[in-house]
């Protein structure tokens, strides 16, 4: 690895960003909305993978930080009339702080306990959003977010999202492939040995959690403005499950896998919702398939097929 992206990957990334930048030329509202939503979820899923794919823990409560980013940005913009350049960073910082607080407790334990605790803490965030009606709007949600004028229509907002998400993903990539990211992989592969060679494993797992929470906060802050509202459901554990499934569907052992998973799952959900109200069943079945036959996700599947083709053509 190292800090330079392989040329092939870099070209594909630039092509995707370039294609997205040209998307508004098609003048399809549907496509612009879809692309905006997928970008937000891609960032959300990639952020979760810092915990799963790189540090080897599973968070069942990642939606909490998405929700915190969303609520804080929405409340500061609307209730307090802050400008975006203050409210957005404040939302991200608060998500990071919340993640650091939870990480302090969760990293005392590993594995199953870690998963249970992340879920429990996210439901605490949900409960607070639900009960603190005067600030969050309770179960009616926080509606009527005051979106700044310069991004107050579809296409400008799309470009705003494209810039922020691309920048965030580039930053995440750099973090994951730095010495820090390498140390995280060591922690994932063998916690005890990583400890022996001098890695502060608890600190590393905590930092991974904070990085993940920070970028989930970015995604949430964008989404609150896109939706012009934040709802308690965004912190509910089923939302955490959704992003978890995205991450695993794409493939947790590849950096970009979760983004692919996010796109596939989101489009599937869009279609499924046209035919059935039982999306959770579909999601549950997808999860079963991942667990029983596709543990490395779509990227893993593609690699396997690729390897087989190479072998066949070589023979």
């Amino acid at each position: 690895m190292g800090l330079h992206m392989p040329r092939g990957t870099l070209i594909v990334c630039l092509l995707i960003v370039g294609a997205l930048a040209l998307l508004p030329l098609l003048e399809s509202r549907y496509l612009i909305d879809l692309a905006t939503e997928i970008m937000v979820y891609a960032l959300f899923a990639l952020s979760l993978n810092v915990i799963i794919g790189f540090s080897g823990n599973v968070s069942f409560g990642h939606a909490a930080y998405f929700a915190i980013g969303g609520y804080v940005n929405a409340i500061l913009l609307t209730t307090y009339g802050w400008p975006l350049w203050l409210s957005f960073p404040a939302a991200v910082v608060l998500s990071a702080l919340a993640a650091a607080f939870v990480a302090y407790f969760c990293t005392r334990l590993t594995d199953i306990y870690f998963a249970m605790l992340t879920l429990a803490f996210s439901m605490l965030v949900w409960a607070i959003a639900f009960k603190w009606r005067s600030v969050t709007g309770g179960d009616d949600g926080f509606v009527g977010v005051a979106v700044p004028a310069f991004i107050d229509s579809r296409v400008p907002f799309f470009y705003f999202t494209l810039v922020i998400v691309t920048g965030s993903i580039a930053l995440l990539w750099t973090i994951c492939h730095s010495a820090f990211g390498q140390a995280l992989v060591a922690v994932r592969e063998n916690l005890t040995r990583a400890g022996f060679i001098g890695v502060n494993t608890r600190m590393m797992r905590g930092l991974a959690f904070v990085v993940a929470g920070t970028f989930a906060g970015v995604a949430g802050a964008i989404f609150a403005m896109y939706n012009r509202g934040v709802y308690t459901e965004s912190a509910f554990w089923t939302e955490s499950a959704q992003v978890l499934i995205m991450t695993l569907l794409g493939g947790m052992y590849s950096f970009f896998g979760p983004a692919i998973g996010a796109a596939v799952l989101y489009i599937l959900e869009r279609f499924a919702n046209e035919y059935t109200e039982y999306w959770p069943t579909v999601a549950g079945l997808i999860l079963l398939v991942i667990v029983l036959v596709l543990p490395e996700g779509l990227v893993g599947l593609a690699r396997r097929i690729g390897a087989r083709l190479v072998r066949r053509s070589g023979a």
Partner: protein
Amino acid sequence: MDMLLSNPTFVLIQVLNSISLGMNLFIIAAGLSLIFGVLRVINFAHGAFYMFGAYIMFTVAQEAELGFVTGVVAAAAGLAAIAVVVERGLFRWLYDKEHLMQLLLTFAIVLLMGDLAKIIWGTDQLSVSYPDALRGATDLGVTFYPTYRLMLAVIGPLIFLGLWLLIERTRWGRLTRAATQDMEMLSALGINVPMIYIVIFVIGSALAGVGGALAAPINSPTPGMDATIIVECFVIVIIGGLGSLWGSFVGALIYGFVFNFGSVIVPNWQDVFAFLLLMAVLLVRPWGLYGKPEREGH
């Protein structure tokens, strides 16, 4: 708040409320903890099992009018049957895989059962009436107290005693405890370990069903009750210590008291108190009050 200081009867009622809530939660949390103790799997679907217990109670006791006891038995039997299907059909493929996959599998079951409940019972809040014999209040001398809640406060310790005797005082219980220590050795000695796994999973799941059935008259069955209860169970077993029967008993009692008195002192924020307690326990004893440190290895 003032009532707490000036009115002993009020305090007594709150104490009884705490115990009856704690005991209802104990029944459910004990199942979760028991399963973890032997199978080393946290069943995220335990809350869904509880929800099904409550719904089965509604169908059997309320709609079919077959009576309260039949409802409890049906809930236990129904969940036992679901447990057999889940264990044989899904769980057994994953015992040697990593924990992540097991957790995800149980999560998939949560999603599927949530929708299944909506298909069968709809999304309305359903009400289950109290059984005739337990309706009304009992005279405790100083005050009257709802008979049904009193029954819960009694039934919890009985179930605790039953489980304790089963695990600590029977041959089968000894085998179960041995299975938690060294499954391969037990298997080599000719013991049918898979059978122990099924039976434990069935008992644990049936407890969730019974807990749900008993809670049904108090907490009207409704979609989403699975999420609330599983978080409560997590808080209890983490406070008490995963895999420990005493842990779930004491943890559930503590939770009952914190929740009830919390709601008296600062109404509406009782959930937060339980979490403050959880954090305190994590700082001092990360493995819970009665838990043992995690074993090494992956």
